[in-house]
């Protein structure tokens, strides 16, 4: 039995992007971390729970407005940003510094979310 999760490689490739402080796969309905690759000091469970809730509300809002699926969610804050994409009750969350290249992160996340089935 392997101890490495099926998400380890995609999480590692995401944190290799410049300015990315951490990445997590989170259960959308539970807000619980499935797997993560985080810098020390990042409050993973708290970010995961709140980001999953945010993503879920964004997805439901997009559906209610008749806009279809929520493709990519980005929250810009004073000292950083949180990005999220989801599929099949899993949300891929990236936490990044303001200097991070969101375009590259977005491409990487949309590619990676394919692994969620």
């Amino acid at each position, binding site marked *: 039995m392997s101890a490495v999760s099926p998400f380890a490689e995609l999480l590692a490739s995401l944190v290799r992007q410049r300015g990315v402080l951490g990445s997590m796969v989170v259960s959308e309905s539970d807000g619980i971390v499935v797997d993560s690759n985080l810098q020390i000091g990042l409050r993973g*469970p708290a970010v995961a*729970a709140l980001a999953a*809730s945010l993503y879920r509300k964004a997805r439901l809002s997009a559906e209610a407005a008749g806009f279809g699926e929520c493709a990519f969610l980005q929250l810009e804050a004073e000292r950083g940003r949180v990005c999220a994409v989801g599929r099949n009750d899993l949300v891929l969350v990236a936490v990044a510094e303001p200097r991070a290249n969101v375009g590259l992160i977005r491409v990487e996340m949309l590619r990676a979310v394919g692994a969620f089935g």
Partner: protein
Amino acid sequence: MSVAVVEGWVEEPLRQFVEDARVLLALLLQPSGQVLAQHGFSRSVDVMSACALAAAIHASSAELGRQLDGRPFAVLHHAGRSRQIFLAPVQTTRGALVCLAVFDAVTSLGLVQLYFAELQARLAKAAAAAAPDAKGPVLAGNFEFELNRNLAVLFGRG
């Protein structure tokens, strides 16, 4: 968010928890089953039943933890089809408490865990600031009297 309490120092921490975590029902009780505060219940008999069951589940899981792991299991989460329960102990200077929360898909286990950690911190702070407990521990002899008194206070009959 309406929260009914027997002891005032638990009111603000529990009210904040209910508001933040968006739980449907919440109970704060002593491990013996004595209720201290509630949110969301409309009948005292339901509070009494929930307290008795929560205290029993907490005692059972704590003992199971001692047998298996050498120390009590702390947090218990049980997911139903549409509702879930979260049961966890809180340590304060005024003694141990147990928190029972019932929630649905409006919130999530992660959010409940997150705000429960804040509830623990707020209760610890409030307990330290509150006046000493003049009543002393509830003993088996006066358990029922105290329970009925607390339920009467919670449901406006005190």
